[in-house]
């Protein structure tokens, strides 16, 4: 079934061994519809009640951190698109920012605007996909198709400008790779209008449904203290009332000039996390609305050397992805490749809280709670 | 032999075979399933006798109720799929004796009973009559046994709840 594990200390998270038959152990994953990827959870059950959850990771571990050690500062950004593939723009953005921080390059205004617009569109697409998948986890299929219709529009916009739909690799140190497509502004404006209407429709279809609310209320409780202690970020922490939006607290690019709210909910449960994400879509739309008409003319890329060399030292950059705080930590020895690179991925920390969140509840609650964590497995495994 | 008699023998053979299988199989879950088929066979026999009401009640009570209960309790016990250990020899001897005694006893009673040809008496009981009979308080009315059976079922239900509650407190 699953691998024998090397136990150094007697783990406290495993319940005291009882007679066989008292507990049922089931494997959710690595191939399971609710894990949305190759996540493997070993669940100990008593009846339908969850006693313990133990994640087994690494089914798609590609050792990106080690690969990056032999890639140049221009190259390693492309690998990061494959981490959290649903917010690939934002991953690229983080890497571009950390290299720019090391080189002390001034990014042109136009590039900054484009980057922020792209980030927010990515966030909208990611949250839309999550919304559909979340509803499907709870047994409602129709929202999934509705979500994909909207996401498709964003993907088309991305395809025109970036040449790719999922792993964009659009942001490079110093700016963006190519200029915007002529259709970009007009199409994005049409998209925003459509989205506002769709969001109302989504609320009618899912949010207001009594079954849905009962499934989400009081499920997967995560208090503010525990959210901080488990290192949760993004909508997961904000659903517990922890203010942690990097765009507000440690603003990068032009975020400090923009009008938007950090969404905080105090419900601490799955419903709160759900509401945070849906409201965040509206905030992102607001940001794009502010920027789309005011993109300044000028260069889209700063002049940089062909071969980048970061000075000796350590550089850390955090950005807010759709899932939470992504940190890129680069240790440079002054060469053309990083000496050590570490990605602090939001999914990894969020997943660690799962056991705490669902212990003692039913299997159905596990699905509802895991859905609101919005796990992307390559982001966790790296 | 008319078609009706042939059907009777088929049903009877079905009941007997499944009954024997249910006591000889070594897997407890299979045993329950054979018992289920045996009970369905009995219901079929009632249908054959043209008393569909009794047949339906047989299915509802035994198949839908009791066998499901048995299956549930098998699920909740351990290792339902493993073969059961062979019974001890002394127990086998005693049960064989009991079976022989039972057969002899039944044969004896059947022998003493004088069977009367039913003739062409129409055996079509309307369902309303059954209902009235069931709740009548006059002679040959069944309201007392009916109520007594209800109390028995109620007692069984209370017992089930008590057992379930006890398990729960033990877990805590």
């Amino acid at each position: 079934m699953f691998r024998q594990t090397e136990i150094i200390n007697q783990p406290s998270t495993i319940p005291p061994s009882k007679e066989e038959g008292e507990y049922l152990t089931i494997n959710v994953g690595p191939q399971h519809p609710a894990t949305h990827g190759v996540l493997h959870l070993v669940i100990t059950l008593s009846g339908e009640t969850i006693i313990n959850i133990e994640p087994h990771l690494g089914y798609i571990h590609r050792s990106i951190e080690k690969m990056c050690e032999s890639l140049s500062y221009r190259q390693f950004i492309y690998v990061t698109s494959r981490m959290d593939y649903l917010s690939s723009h934002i991953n690229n953005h983080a890497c571009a920012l950390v290299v720019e921080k090391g080189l002390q390059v001034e990014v042109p205004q136009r590039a900054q605007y484009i980057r922020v617009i792209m980030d927010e569109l990515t966030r909208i697409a990611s949250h839309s996909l999550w919304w559909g998948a979340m509803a499907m986890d709870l047994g409602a299929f129709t929202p999934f198709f509705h979500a994909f219709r909207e996401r498709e529009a964003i993907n088309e916009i991305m395809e025109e400008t970036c040449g790719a739909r999922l792993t964009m690799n659009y942001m490079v140190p110093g700016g963006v790779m190519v200029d915007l497509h002529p259709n970009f502004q007009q199409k994005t404006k049409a998209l925003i209008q459509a989205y506002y209407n769709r969001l109302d429709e989504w609320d009618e279809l899912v949010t207001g449904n009594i079954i849905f609310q009962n499934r989400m209320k009081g499920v997967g409780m995560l208090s503010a203290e525990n959210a901080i202690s488990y290192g949760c970020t993004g909508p997961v922490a904000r659903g517990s009332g922890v203010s942690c939006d990097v765009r507000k607290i440690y603003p990068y690019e032009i975020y400090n000039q923009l009008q938007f709210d950090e969404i905080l909910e105090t419900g601490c449960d799955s419903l709160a996390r759900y509401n945070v994400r849906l409201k965040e879509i509206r905030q992102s739309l607001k940001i794009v609305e502010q920027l789309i008409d005011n993109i300044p003319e000028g260069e889209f890329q700063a002049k940089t050397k062909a071969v980048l060399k970061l000075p000796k030292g350590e550089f850390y950059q955090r950005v807010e992805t759709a899932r939470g705080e992504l940190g890129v930590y680069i240790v440079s020895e002054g060469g053309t490749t990083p000496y050590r690179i570490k990605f602090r991925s939001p999914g990894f920390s969020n997943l660690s809280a799962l056991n705490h969140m669902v212990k003692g509840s039913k299997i159905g609650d596990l699905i509802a709670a895991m859905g609101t964590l919005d796990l992307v497995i390559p982001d966790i495994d790296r | 032999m008319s078609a009706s008699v042939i059907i009777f023998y088929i049903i009877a053979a079905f009941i007997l075979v499944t009954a024997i299988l249910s006591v000889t199989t070594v897997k407890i879950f299979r045993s329950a399933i054979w018992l289920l088929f045996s009970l369905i066979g009995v219901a079929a026999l009632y249908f054959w006798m043209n008393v569909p009401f009794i047949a339906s009640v047989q299915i509802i009570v035994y198949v839908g109720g009791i066998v499901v209960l048995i299956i549930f309790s098998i699920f909740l016990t351990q290792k339902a799929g493993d073969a059961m250990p062979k019974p001890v020899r002394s127990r086998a001897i005693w049960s064989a004796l009991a079976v022989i005694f039972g057969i002899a006893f039944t044969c004896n009673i059947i022998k003493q009973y004088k069977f009367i040809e039913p003739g062409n008496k129409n055996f079509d009981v309307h369902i309303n009559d059954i209902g009235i009979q069931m709740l009548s308080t006059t002679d040959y009315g069944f309201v007392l046994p009916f109520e007594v059976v209800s109390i028995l079922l109620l007692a069984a239900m209370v017992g089930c709840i008590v057992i379930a509650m006890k398990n729960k407190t033990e877990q805590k």
Partner: protein
Amino acid sequence: MTNEELKIKLTELNPAATFEEGGEWLNLFIDAADLLSFTKTIKENSELYFDYLFCLTCVDWKTHLTMVYHFSSTKHRHNIVVKVKLDRTNPEIETLSFLWRTAEFHEREVYELFGVKFLNHPDLRRLILTDDFEGWPLRKDFEDPINMIKL
């Protein structure tokens, strides 16, 4: 608090700490033996209140390993980087998983990629790699001729 204020405050708490200049945030080196008590203090001190361990990793310097802890405060919004030098042959350090729950997973990751043993860790097992995997992949001297990672 600014980096300068933090430096004064932290020197008070741990006079043995050495500071590294440069970088965005305050970097300080402490002894492995002090780690648990020091981090407990900076977490509970109301002026510092570093309640959020947002990054935990390790760097292989070929002569020694360095554990790197990034702390942040959700109340005061200041950050520090705490570093601990470890022996390369037998790296051992106290776990922080009882102070910050997130450390449990991050330490398991560091354990299997760098071979750092975390004392008193509740469940120190491999998280990502197979259990019969040999070697510590993120160390600089790791060579795997079959699955080449270096390009």
